[in-house]
């Protein structure tokens, strides 16, 4: 089982370029850790949401912590050393059932099947949802 640490609130920067490129946003998967990982005292509500996904390997899960680089978006000049977003994938928490957020708030985490969650995962470079 993999466990996702997901940012719950937007971080902002006064410089618009740094804001878009360097700041974690609501729904970004910050790290993926193995089952039974012990999270830190700050790694929970209200800053973060911990999502446990049974059956997902760490290797599969870590796809969702890839940074978005220049060239990921169609038409951009390729420069893979330039990070254009902290994370390429974003979990659309605003589209998630409120019960999911409420459970995480009261329990400290939620456990979900990936098939029921992947429709919430958006590839921000392509705009596609579904976790691919």
């Amino acid at each position, binding site marked *: 089982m993999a466990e996702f640490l997901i*940012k719950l609130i937007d971080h902002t920067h006064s410089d618009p370029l740094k804001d878009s490129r360097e700041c974690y946003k609501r729904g970004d998967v910050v790290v993926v850790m193995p089952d039974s990982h012990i*999270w830190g005292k700050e790694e929970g509500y209200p800053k973060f949401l911990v999502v446990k996904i049974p059956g997902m390997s760490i290797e599969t899960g870590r796809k969702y912590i890839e940074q978005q680089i220049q060239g990921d978006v169609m038409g951009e000049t390729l420069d893979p050393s330039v990070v254009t977003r902290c994370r390429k994938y974003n979990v659309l928490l605003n589209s998630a059932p409120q019960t999911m957020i409420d459970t995480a708030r009261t329990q400290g985490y939620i456990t979900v099947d990936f098939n029921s969650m992947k429709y919430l995962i958006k590839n921000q470079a392509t705009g596609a949802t579904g976790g691919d």
Partner: protein
Amino acid sequence: MATEIIKTIKSSGGDYSSLSGFVAGEARDLVTADEIAVAECYTLSGADVAATISGFTADPTRYVKVYTPAAERHDGKWNSSKYRIEGAVQWGGALRVITPHTTIDGLQVRNTSTGSETSALRVDDTADISNNILTIDKVTAGNADSGIFVDGIASGATVRAWNNIIYNCGTGIYYQWASASTFVLYNNTVMNCDQVGINFVGSATLYLKNNICNGNSTDYTLSNLASLTSNNNISEDSSSPDASYRNLAVTFVNEGSYDFHLDSSDTSAIDAGANLSADGQLSFSDDIDGEIRSGTWDIGADELPSGGVTKTVSDTAGGSDAISQLAVGLTMADSGSGSDGFAGMAADLSLSDAGSGSDVIAQLLASLAVLDTGHGDDSQNITVSFTVVDTGTGSDLVNVITDIIKTVTDTGSGIENVQVSPYLAVSDTAQGTEIVGLNVLLSIADTGAGSDALSSIQTVLSVADAGSGQDAVPVISVTVPVVDTAQGLDLIASVNAALQVADSGSGFDIVSASYDGQAKKVVITFKSKKPGISFSGRTAKITFASKKPKITFH
């Protein structure tokens, strides 16, 4: 002064469980908040994952600091039992620093990717990089597969890197035709890189001093620079910018196992460096192990200790710190027949506190031992020095300063000459309320047949209080046992213990005195011909618990 906000990264019980979590949870405008964001990294159950320091607003005095406390830090050689970052990241670094003015101190970083531009540490802006061990996993690495990659750096940035060990990369430190920036590279050790040790080509301003590059395909490639200031840089080939330091192979403790501490047999780097303690670009005076560089400096990240160990903790920040133990242990075992001279077996532990926080120092501890079972006539000089200087306003607790044992055990037949001298000092000029305990135990046991001379056994414990706080010094004690069960004729020139309490502060202090339970008496001796006790208060009283108290004048 900016306030340090410390967050711990631990396997359990910490604020965060990864450096990435710290960045995501703590990124903010440090300038407006007037804060320093500190990531204090503890040993995790495995390696920490790759991380990027970004999203903070920082300036030279409000910045991000990522560091390992001494107990969580490598010992100058890669250590998988200490905090480390390992990640497979191409086109970047296993640790990438984007936020300017970030400091990275005492980390181990490895990039395990086999892709392109795989660096251990990628730096995009002004940063201080010290005391790190950096490497990558690629079997055959290209130019940009670097220990420190600074090729995409912001124009006008300044990167200072010192006391780092970098090995098995494509290039140790890589810059090529990037923005005009300034680089200060001092006392780094760069080993066994497939391409170049230190590669700087383009419009950089480069200060290059006291570096070792050995075993790289080419040790230095330096060209088209805006300016180059260099001295004392060693190359194994002929590429060093400093002619006198070319074609020198440095001898390390064990290069095969990546132990790049200087071997004592080395003749190239030891005592061949420039003293940079007052350098205008970057001044420092320790090495990758935290040991003080003294005398003529060694070249590279390591300073070979000259028979002793020095550890210094300097606290100038506002946070409240806990130092569970500042310890050093040295053992010299002599079972050979030769006559040896241990000129300096020393430990120097120093704590300087100018910060406003309330600190807890659980223990300062030194243990130095000489075990002599050999037949030679030996000479030993053992010294321990502890110093705590408190000029901060916080109320500090120094539980125990224990010069715990300096043991000389002599079961050999040789004639020994031993000097043992500890020195413990607490200087309090600050306003806080301090609690300090001092203990010394010196032990000399002689069961050998030789005639020994113990020329000096001395201890000095000093508490100087010029601060206004109300202090408690619960214990000042010295024990110096000399046990001689052997047949030799021994000469013990002097056994001295001096305890000094100098109190010129305005606070109300409590010094608890001990009582001799065996003799059942307290003896106060006045050396003056006119001894006296004066009371400045209007009412003064001496109370005797005994029904028949006696004061004797001789």
